[in-house]
């Protein structure tokens, strides 16, 4: 098992394989995004309470889910890179950070744009919103820490520890709307009984979420390829690859 993994995680193999995968991943991402947008903006009926404004859900909720998902994916990568010293795991954590920060900022922005017409305010310091702001600071702190430490191995280890400590924030975000009496509404989709949303709205929402997930994978792999190439710049396969392409 470990042998198969380390073979797959070998830089050359990773670079070649992802190079072939990325065009297909882009096709799938764009297709799902188009379907999700059409379903959310055109096919889904207006909400009986919020009218058309509720449509922000189709970008707000996937962004917020991704904000947490990317963080957990970074935490798993950070743990793997700490324990088994697998370079690719460290690279994945590194390239995920700006994407996670983007999704977190988008969740806050779209939440604000939704809050103004529905709650009558752009911003409140309630438990949900505050814990997401902390998540954004964790991402920014991670990137700043990596940038500040010169030595690559020290940087990866220190930043991995920061990410792992910050994991406590993720359940806080999830349960914040249950533990505290917040202005933010409770969970709609991830309830134990049936989701409190009609299927005509649920399907575009899930399609958008899947599109965001694929987008993260695609752009993450693009960035990871660059990172692999840069770190392996003096190895033979990179020299050969560059020479081949230059011809």
């Amino acid at each position: 098992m470990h042998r198969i993994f380390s073979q797959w995680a070998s830089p050359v193999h990773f670079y070649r394989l992802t190079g072939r995968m990325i065009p297909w991943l882009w096709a799938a991402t764009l297709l799902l995004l188009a379907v999700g947008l059409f379903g959310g903006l055109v096919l889904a009926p207006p909400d009986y309470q919020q009218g058309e404004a509720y449509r922000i859900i189709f970008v707000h909720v996937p962004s917020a889910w991704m904000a947490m998902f990317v963080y957990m994916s970074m935490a798993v990568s950070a743990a793997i890179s700490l324990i088994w010293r697998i370079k690719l795991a460290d690279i994945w954590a590194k390239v995920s950070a700006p994407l996670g920060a983007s999704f977190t900022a988008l969740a806050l922005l779209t939440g604000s744009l939704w809050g103004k017409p529905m709650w009558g305010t752009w911003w409140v310091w309630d438990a949900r919103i505050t814990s997401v702001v902390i998540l954004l600071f964790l991402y920014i702190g991670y990137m700043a820490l990596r940038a500040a430490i010169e030595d690559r191995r020290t940087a990866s280890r220190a930043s991995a520890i920061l990410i792992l400590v910050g994991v406590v924030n993720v359940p806080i975000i999830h349960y914040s709307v249950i533990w505290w009496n917040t202005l933010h509404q409770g969970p709609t989709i991830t309830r134990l009984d049936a989701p409190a949303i009609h299927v005509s709205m649920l399907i575009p929402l899930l399609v958008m979420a899947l599109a965001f997930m694929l987008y993260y994978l695609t752009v993450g792999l693009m960035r990871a390829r660059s990172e692999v190439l840069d770190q392996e710049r003096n190895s033979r396969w990179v020299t050969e690859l560059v020479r081949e392409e230059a011809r």
Partner: protein
Amino acid sequence: MSEFLAMGGYAFYVWTSFGAVLLVMLVNALEAARHHRQLRRRLERSQRRDSEQSARQAVHQTTLQRRG
């Protein structure tokens, strides 16, 4: 169509949300592609420099040998 764009009076909130999300996603993707292109070019240049340098050294060495 104009009814669709009006979003029941919530046009500003809805379209700013969707616009911002798609813009940030686009910028991230373009930035990743640009970074990769630049890296490839940088690697190519440094490799060319290295091979030119070793070629010069080889020429230098043969002249020394001939003189010697």
